[in-house]
């Protein structure tokens, strides 16, 4: 694997499968009475978060602790960014204390690339602006594979605010790389220009997009998007693009419903779908820990063992 995980583009299909396979083993650790292995003992992992995050930060932290890494959380309030030191200076200061891995969440696309040019520590992108969120796509793939035993050939539809979603970009790269038939769907105001070049089908009709789908993945709609005139109201959004039981019925009978969270019930997804039989939303959260353990292990653990 490359030094850093900034984008799904950094991974080959083989490496993706290796991460997913390793995550299977890691999940077993989480089912033991004593959920800890010494794999990353003596390694230091810094979780550097410039954006508030509950799910991702907690997931990384649990993964690190289960691998016995020494973990440190740095939450930088976004308000202090403008008056405080630059990201580059913060990175150099952290680097001076010689951590092995920096997990970065930042509001600017490409923030991880900036860090990567400065730091010898390994960088894991935990979400950069509207660019990517690679470990989310990996845990989504893990969850899909668990239910469908494969990814290749599945019809996977991603619905919602495509323009502002880093989850979208990572998932599109990963799922097309593994041979899925990926559809993206949302209001035309929220479709990134040129996205079809990534090898996806683009539709503004949710009925068309969902028809026969194996996997339906919903993306969060931020409430403030009406201010940008992307759509008129949350009610109209729900009526046009919200995932309801009637729409789910157009997908395959065994289709699974996914959401990276946090959900807006009644906006992008109806509660009876979110809590319904096809929903794997909480499994995604559970799998996130195993997948992040696998990434940390493969990036910070294995190579050193080979060198020793």
């Amino acid at each position, binding site marked *: 694997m490359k030094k850093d995980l900034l984008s799904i583009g950094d991974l080959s299909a083989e490496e993706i499968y290796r991460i997913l396979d390793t995550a299977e083993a890691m999940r077993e650790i989480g089912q033991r009475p004593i959920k800890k292995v010494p794999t990353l003992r003596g390694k230091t992992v810094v979780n550097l978060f410039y954006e508030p995050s509950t799910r991702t930060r907690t997931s990384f932290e649990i993964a690190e602790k289960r691998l016995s890494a020494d973990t440190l959380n740095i939450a930088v309030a976004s308000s202090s960014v403008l008056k405080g030191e630059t990201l580059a200076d913060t990175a150099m200061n952290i680097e001076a204390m010689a951590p092995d891995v920096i997990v970065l969440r930042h509001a*600017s696309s490409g923030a991880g690339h900036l860090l990567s040019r400065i730091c010898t520590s390994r960088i894991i992108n935990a979400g950069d602006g509207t660019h990517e969120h690679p470990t989310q796509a990996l845990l989504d793939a893990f969850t899909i594979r668990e239910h469908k035993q494969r990814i290749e050939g599945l019809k996977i539809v991603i619905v919602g605010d495509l323009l502002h979603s880093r989850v979208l970009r990572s998932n599109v790269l990963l799922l097309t790389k593994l041979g899925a038939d990926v559809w993206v769907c949302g209001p035309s105001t929220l479709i990134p220009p*040129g996205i079809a070049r990534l090898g996806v089908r683009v539709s503004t009709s949710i009925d068309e997009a969902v028809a026969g789908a194996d996997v339906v993945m919903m993306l969060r709609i931020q409430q403030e998007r009406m201010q940008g005139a992307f759509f008129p109201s949350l009610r109209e959004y729900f009526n046009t693009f919200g995932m309801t039981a009637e729409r789910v019925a157009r997908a395959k009978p065994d289709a699974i419903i996914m959401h990276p969270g946090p959900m807006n019930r009644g906006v992008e997804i109806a509660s009876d779908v979110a809590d319904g039989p096809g929903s794997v939303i909480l499994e995604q959260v559970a799998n996130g820990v195993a997948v992040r353990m696998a990434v940390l292990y493969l990036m910070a653990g294995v190579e050193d063992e080979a060198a020793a």
Partner: protein
Amino acid sequence: MKRLLRGGRVVDPANGRDGVFDVWIDGDRIAQVGRDLRVDGDTRIVDVPSGLVVCPGLIDMHVHLREPGQEHKETVATGTAAAVAGGFTAVACMPNTSPVIDNAGVVAYVLKKAAEANLARVYPIGAVSRGQRGEQLADIAEMKAAGCVALTDDGHPVSTAILMRRALEYAGMFDLPVIEHCEEQSLKGEGVAHEGFHASSLGLRGIPGEAESIMALRDISLAELTGGAVHVAHMSARQTLDAVRYGKSRGARVTCEVTPHHFVLTDEMLGAPVAYDTNVKMNPPLRQIEDRDAMLAGLADGSIDAIATDHAPHHADEKAVEFDRAPFGIVGLETCVPIVFEKLVHPGHITLARAVELLSLNPARILRRPGGSLAVGAVADVTVLAPEASTTIVASRLMSKSKNTPFGGWTFRGVTAATIVGGRTVFTNPDAPGAAVFA
């Protein structure tokens, strides 16, 4: 002092010359141009080394010298040192300084700094509106009297049509062109890169080409309404070029310029070779291949009037941040001539005479300045070019105070050999064979 530049290839489109001629300089003026000139005894004879080209001094009509107020980026002295090193005998400087060049006092200050530096000529461009705030007109008559050559709110487009109308009407009285940074602000929004596949992939907010062309069309219509002269700065989008062609076809007084980076680079550079390199962040943004190719076509077919660099120095610290937080702009004075040779002249897109028109004659005409010509009696602003000498750009070696260029490490064939301002040699290039004879 009298000098005879003997036997060089003279390229002077204003006078229809492209061939071997002698150029006789007397003091700060061109005394004579012709074949085998006979000159008096107190003239120093300079035999132009073979292969070098003598042309009217290059004029960069779009430069940010940053003084007053942002001297950590550039000063008039460092900026004009970069200018002459790049072959420019004159630069027109933008008013988005601190304070803004919106009154005669600041115009005079810039000219005083230019006189102290005593390198390239400096033509201050005044603000259209007081403080570049788009509300009241700046002190246009007084700025003109103090030496300002054009008006612009560069970086802050004139947002209302009525103010642009008034500016064109009022500036027309003083024969001042209005230079517009065409950008419809609501379409630009918080954009940082060209709207398209690359920005989408990288999660960067996009700016469509239409943000530029919409305002160009508005301004062209207002030029027709008022009879005023509009100059479209740093054109980047193919739609804007079409707008300019449309305006010209209707007889509107519209001219336009393009920067080297917009006819060479594209938005592919956002992702590679260095992803999120803030030295490819400029406004207007690098656009897609179709736009770049349209600019090449416009340069060749005569639709584009001038090449200007939009030299925009920024301190390294300011650029060493997240892409969306970095300031827009790159330095351009010292890379322009090599790029024009390598990317336009040598591949045959344009002739050398056309290049001189774009870099010297037309900027002089648009700004109604002397220069752009080696006519008898013209100012002796002369640039000597070495079309075959190669250079590799090394950012740290630039004369500009700032080093923010995406062209570091690029090798180009064609450089400036010497720069002569008012008859006085202000730069010779040690890397151009034979250039020392001009010292």
